[in-house]
């Protein structure tokens, strides 16, 4: 990580941990190390309860880390240091999972709030996000449907035109057509301005075409982090006879069904394995799923043996320098 200068990363975690409920509370996130280069569309994936929302709350500066540090554009946020909180706030946009809004405000009031409180506000962009939902400007927020509220919350976050846009489960309440259109607006604007986007989903396939970087969380740990292409290049789906020795490479997942063995190998030989073996480049969802299953298995195993969690295989990360 030291080989790259800090400002190349929008978000960077070093030994990051967060616990709730004081010094004895459970860890929601721990031992997290990753870096998201600026300009990336990073998918934050993982099952419910993996720590995604905690990570978003930290990155949105809604709470301080309990240990380690989180750097936003190189500016560190630590348990006792505040960093350049106020300066950073203008550069970060966040739509939380529960989409809080003032219920007594109208749609127009809500947009006006965005305009009044953000110097970089882009009314046209926010209205483009809204128009997809055909929202009446004088409708009360409290009377909107879940999907419409989501849309308004997203308009507020996107209209701010932040350099780092944090969207926690933005698509959950939206119908497929709206999802597609929203992602179109979001991605084209991100492409225009070089915005870094962290977008989460518990549905692995939903963001497959959208992200070029992934951060896979499981039980509060980073299981996989890096550029999608680099990660896919570093993995191979391999299958062959079960009685043969496994081809070289670290097995993320290895399963034997009958006389066939299949699995996902990390850092396999550059050359394809010999004849009975076949291999292919995994799809992103296959890669994520294999890592999640591997993480869950490792978790269960550790729970059985009572081994300390640090004995688990280190998470896979790739340094994406570009």
């Amino acid at each position, binding site marked *: 990580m030291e080989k790259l200068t800090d400002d190349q990363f929008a978000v960077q975690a070093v030994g990051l941990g967060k616990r709730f409920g004081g010094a004895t509370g459970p860890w929601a996130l721990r031992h997290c190390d990753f870096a998201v280069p600026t300009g990336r*569309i990073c998918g934050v994936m993982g099952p419910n309860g993996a720590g995604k929302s905690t990570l978003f709350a930290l990155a949105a500066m809604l709470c301080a880390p309990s240990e380690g540090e989180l750097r936003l554009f190189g500016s560190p946020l630590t348990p006792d240091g505040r960093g350049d909180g106020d300066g950073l706030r203008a550069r970060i946009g966040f739509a939380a999972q529960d989409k809080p809004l003032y219920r007594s405000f109208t749609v127009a009031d809500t947009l006006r709030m965005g305009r009044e409180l953000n110097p970089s506000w882009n009314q046209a962009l926010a209205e483009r996000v809204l128009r997809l939902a055909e929202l009446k400007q004088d409708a009360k927020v409290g009377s909107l449907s879940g999907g419409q509220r989501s849309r308004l919350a997203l308009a507020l976050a996107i209209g701010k035109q932040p350099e780092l846009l944090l969207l926690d489960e933005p698509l959950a309440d939206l119908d497929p057509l709206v*999802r*597609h*259109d929203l*992602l*179109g*607006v979001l*991605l*084209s604007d*991100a*492409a*225009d301005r070089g915005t870094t986007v962290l977008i989460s989903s518990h549905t692995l396939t939903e963001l*497959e*075409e*959208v*992200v*070029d970087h992934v951060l896979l969380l499981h039980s509060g740990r980073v299981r996989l982090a890096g550029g999608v292409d680099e990660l896919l290049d570093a993995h191979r789906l391999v299958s062959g006879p079960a009685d043969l020795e496994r081809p070289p490479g670290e097995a993320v997942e290895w399963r034997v069904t009958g006389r066939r063995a299949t699995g996902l190998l990390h850092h396999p030989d550059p050359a394809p394995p010999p004849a009975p073996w076949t291999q292919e480049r995994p*799809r992103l969802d296959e890669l994520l799923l294999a890592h999640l299953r591997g993480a869950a298995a490792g978790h269960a195993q550790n729970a059985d043996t009572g081994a300390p969690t640090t004995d688990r295989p280190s998470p896979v990360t790739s340094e994406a320098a570009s």
Partner: protein
Amino acid sequence: MIEYRLDRRSGVPTYQQIVQQTEQALRLGVLRPGDKLPTAREVVELTAVNPNTVLKAYRELERAGLVAPRPGLGTFVLRSLARPEAAEDGPLRAELTAWVDRARGAGLDREDVAALVASVLDQRFATGLRPGPAPDATG
């Protein structure tokens, strides 16, 4: 202007689909030299895919010498892939049409014909084989 239709379930990486559809359009003459490709932004907005995916496809097309970016203006088609032989009134197409008619006459349905064509394509365009004058091309 070309509009990309991306199939998420095809298993073909998205950027390759963009490359293939552009090449297809160049082959069929839908895109001609001097035509402007949609901007990456436009493609992203319509297809909701990652901007880098589109840029990667455009770089690939650029590397193949098919398109070139003109700063501030957009990406433009440099050369066509359309071949006179493949045109609507070309001799190859006429031959193929005649062959398909014969195959139908012999009782093959659409799937049979497609499978047969695919198999011959696989055989003749297999890795390592260079297109060249085949001895039985005229037979």
